[in-house]
């Protein structure tokens, strides 16, 4: 671990500092967006969007490499595919609820398949695993600026429209009766989830971004008394998991993204187990009182 901190302080090795800043900036999104994704139960939807991103990345890499289009960064394709996937799922979810599952799974699979096929046909070597599992040590200063800007936007929107976000998640029909434009709230959330997924996949990768959008918020859900508490606690847990995963990944020379998710998963399961034991204990005390 001392090696981690000495490398962090080394001016010649900025990549680890970038990784640490990325971990902390990502935690804000994992906490705030994760809480909304969790209470609105749209985690599967976010999973489909994150996997569709591979299609956008692969397509841009292929078209750029074959000179069909001018060379552009693959992240542009990721944004287009993520937003497109989110809006398609959103429209289907609102208009034909019974088809939602099918469409989510179709977009999930089709996005991945487009990515795999186009990467396979892209001239030169393209390694899909860095996109699938992330490579936090390749994070650039531009990525950090994007993450910081999105953090500010997300926190500002969550603070400004908190009552409307909370009401439409808890009781959408009632929020509508109170005049809240619930569909607008829903589509803005989907759009932000899509953009966030693209930026966050640089940290933990496409496959694991959904885990980090649900595990810190899910862990927070065991003790949070309200949605804002879930956001703040989720942010706190995500920071611990992210930094912990980064340190562990560096120390044991394993992928940091995977370590982050392993730590998050272990803590979540520990909370779930503690919750079950507590419930069981409470029930047996109550049964004893009833018998007495």
């Amino acid at each position, binding site marked *: 671990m001392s090696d981690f901190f000495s490398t962090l302080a080394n001016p010649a090795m900025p990549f680890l500092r970038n990784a640490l800043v990325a971990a902390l900036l990502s935690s804000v999104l994992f906490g705030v967006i994760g809480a909304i994704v969790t209470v609105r139960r749209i985690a599967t939807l976010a999973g489909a969007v994150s996997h569709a991103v591979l299609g956008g990345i692969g397509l841009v890499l292929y078209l750029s490499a074959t000179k069909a289009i001018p060379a552009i960064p693959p992240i542009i394709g990721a944004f287009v595919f993520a937003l497109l996937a989110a809006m398609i799922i959103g429209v289907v979810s609102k208009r034909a609820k019974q088809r939602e599952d099918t469409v989510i799974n179709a977009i999930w699979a089709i996005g991945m398949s487009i990515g795999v096929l186009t990467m396979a046909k892209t001239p030169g070597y393209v390694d899909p695993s860095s996109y699938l599992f992330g490579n936090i040590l390749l994070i650039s200063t531009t990525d950090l600026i994007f993450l910081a800007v999105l953090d500010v936007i997300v926190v500002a929107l969550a603070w400004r429209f908190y*009552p409307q976000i909370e009401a439409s998640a*808890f009781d959408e029909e009632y929020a509508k009766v109170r005049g809240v434009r619930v569909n607008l709230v829903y589509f803005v959330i989907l759009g932000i989830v899509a953009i966030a997924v693209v930026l966050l996949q640089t940290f933990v990768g496409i496959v694991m971004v959904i885990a980090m959008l649900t595990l810190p918020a899910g862990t927070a859900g065991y003790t949070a008394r309200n949605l804002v508490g879930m956001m703040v606690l989720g942010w706190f847990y995500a920071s611990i998991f992210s930094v912990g995963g980064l340190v562990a990944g560096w120390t044991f020379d394993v992928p940091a993204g995977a370590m982050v998710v392993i730590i998050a998963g272990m803590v979540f399961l520990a909370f779930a187990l503690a919750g079950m034991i507590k419930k069981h204990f409470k029930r047996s005390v109550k049964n004893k009182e009833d018998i007495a």
Partner: protein
Amino acid sequence: MEHNHATALRFQNVSFSYGQTAVLDNINFHIHEGEFIALVGPNGTGKSTILKLALGLESPHSGSVLVYGKQPQSMLHRIGYVPQHTQYDRSFPISVSEVVGMGLLHPSSKKANIKQQDRISDALQDVAVGDLADRPYTDLSGGQRRRVLVARALISHPSFLILDEPTANMDSESESLLFSVLGTLKGKTTILIVTHDTEFVSSLTDRVLCLGKRGSCAGGATIVQHLTEPVDYAHATLTGQEKLKVLHDVQIPGDACNQEGTLHE
């Protein structure tokens, strides 16, 4: 009580269907300001659809729905609504106070009323659950949750209160308390209460609207009014409130207007 007041709600030639399934067929009725109306009918006849139309959550396929003479969407600030809300996320972290505070929710503003906490406390006291303010909503019993939803509807002091099956799964104490609260509002607030109990209604009721499938050409439900009569066998201690028996053998057109306001035999 005279009901020569303005009309709070008017359904005029309203038909509605979900896809190819006709739900409502040429519905006509109106409610005057200050009236206490029971809308009864068996499950699946379209009572909740009538409420959705009145709240502007759905639009009629033909005919018109007017609240205080205007489109429902522009009058929502005058309506208090108690939904069934039987399906909710049992792990949603939210306190009773926060649920009640939603009754003061503005469509886009964050600004909270400076007396919001006082109003929340008062609304909870009105339905006798003031001590539950800080409890998680999901920890409450079915009856307590119903009372909280009533408090949420009342906090904005609506002039028109719509309740969807408020007594479903409610214990008799909660039911009695609910109707005593509604009794204090009677005459001052227009009340439309929906229930699937087609035999008895609260003694507070001025008129009974009955929704049912009566063999209309389109296959949707139609609406008529029924007379009521007091009964002594549905005793208050058993049911939580005084009740009136609905006389189904007397059918009055849904839009018939009685200036006396009450339709008891």
